[in-house]
């Protein structure tokens, strides 16, 4: 029997209890979820703080903080929406990141280092902030870049002696900030800088995200890095987000892997592929695959064999 599929079916029917089917499904899936939860539980890798960072890897903390002053960290040269220090990513003439503008203004040196120290009960730190702010931009750059190099060469030191005063107030700024972080006051200072009862973790997270030796290293231990298919993965051995497989895939291969505009290109590409998925019913070749490879003969095998 051949019918027009857009017309209501007038052929043989069978009884069907929709509500009972839904109730049974909820019961079965509820028991399944409960069983899986009882067997496997769920992951809970504890959150990190600026305090845990300063205590666990003070060298990385000191180097990152110096980088904020020297303008060498990711946040200092991010571009919109945080600052205009650099151009954002683009795809050809599509400069979506730049067009969105600086709507979440963050000056990393000021937000992560100078403002917290200005409010911290450490006279040496406060004096160092005053000395820094009184200097010219060129002088600040010379001090901070020099100290960043010195710390980098020292590799395992959290501070470097400065008998010739090459680095100005920078060593004091960094050492004070490290102590402020170790004691826990920096977390509170960054969180409450914009709001007394905060729910917005932008500042501490942006600062943490600049850390390579601590934050990124911790993520890579758990295979959460971008080039480790990290978008798909979960901490520990739990299953992650397997539905993000295609999104993760592009970051593992060139030209995306080594492109400066990887994020824009991958996001736009996934948008296009999603649109194509929605358009499958009208795409030539693709829409005929179910007819060419007749898996439907398995789906409707009972109906086809006992057709009335």
């Amino acid at each position, binding site marked *: 029997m051949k019918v027009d599929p857009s017309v209501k*079916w007038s052929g043989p029917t069978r009884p069907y209890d929709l509500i009972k089917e839904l109730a049974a499904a909820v019961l079965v899936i509820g028991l399944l979820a409960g069983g899986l939860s009882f067997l496997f539980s*769920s992951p809970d890798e*504890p959150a990190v703080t600026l305090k845990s960072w300063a205590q666990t890897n003070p060298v990385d903390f000191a180097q990152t903080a110096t980088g904020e002053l020297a303008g060498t960290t990711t946040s200092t040269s991010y571009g919109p929406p945080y600052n205009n220090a650099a151009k954002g990513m683009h795809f050809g003439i599509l400069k979506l990141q730049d*067009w969105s503008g600086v709507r979440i203004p963050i000056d990393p040196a000021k937000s992560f280092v100078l403002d917290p120290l200005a409010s911290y009960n450490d006279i040496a730190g406060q004096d160092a902030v005053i000395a820094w702010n009184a200097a010219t931009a060129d002088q600040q750059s010379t001090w901070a870049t020099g100290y960043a190099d010195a710390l980098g060469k020292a590799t395992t030191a959290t501070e470097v002696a400065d008998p010739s005063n090459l680095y100005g107030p920078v060593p004091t700024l960094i050492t004070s900030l490290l102590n402020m972080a170790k004691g826990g006051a920096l977390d509170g200072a960054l969180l409450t800088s914009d709001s007394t009862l905060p729910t917005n*973790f932008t500042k501490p997270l942006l600062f943490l995200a600049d850390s390579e030796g601590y934050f990124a290293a911790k993520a890579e231990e758990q295979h*959460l890095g971008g080039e480790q298919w990290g978008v798909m993965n979960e901490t520990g051995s*739990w299953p992650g987000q397997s539905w993000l497989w295609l999104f993760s895939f592009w970051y593992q291969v060139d030209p995306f892997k080594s492109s400066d505009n990887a994020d824009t290109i991958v996001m736009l590409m996934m948008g296009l592929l999603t649109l194509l998925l929605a358009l499958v019913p009208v795409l030539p070749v693709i829409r005929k695959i179910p007819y060419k490879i007749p898996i439907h003969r398995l789906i409707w095998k009972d*109906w*086809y064999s006992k057709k009335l």
Partner: protein
Amino acid sequence: MSTSWTTRVRKATLESYKPEDLLPDTQPAYVASWIYIFGVATIAAFVMLFATGLWLTLEGPAWWHTSSIGHFANSMHLWSVELFFVFMVVHLWGKFWMAAWRGKRITTWVSGVVAFMASIITAFTGYLIQTNFDSQWISTEAKDGFNSIGVGAFFNALNTGQAILLHVALLPLLLGGIVVWHIILIRRKGVVPPIDNDATLEGNK
């Protein structure tokens, strides 16, 4: 066309559907395959997500870190997510191989893809509000993706408060609405007949 809004809404909704089409107690005889369970299984997982999600809202976002009952509620919510996507994707596979868009059902297919994408976005905001290391890492990585297309200026992945409200209020309403739309389309058009019974495919396969 009546000038009464109420009349127009009633005609577009209640009077457009027969009750026996919305809540039928029969179905075409060809709806006889295990492939057909994955749609309702997805809905059942969605119901579990709502229930376990509401359970979690009772005690707040950080409850599960210090309470074993809270941790179990979190586990049920996470495993419901895994089941939700497993069944949804298998349902998608089934619908593709049935060419279920036939007979003016393209909108149904499109509504399904929209539901898939809305689910991914909703799940993403859920992963953002775990208040643990995973959510911290995810937020700092995801911000780069959003910023790269200009969305980050409006949706700040590092703003946990924003993510919580989106995940618990706006997105479930939106996703729920899309799912209801998807189901109404299916009830309106009926389940697509088998490919070999399709008169419109003659010579066009």
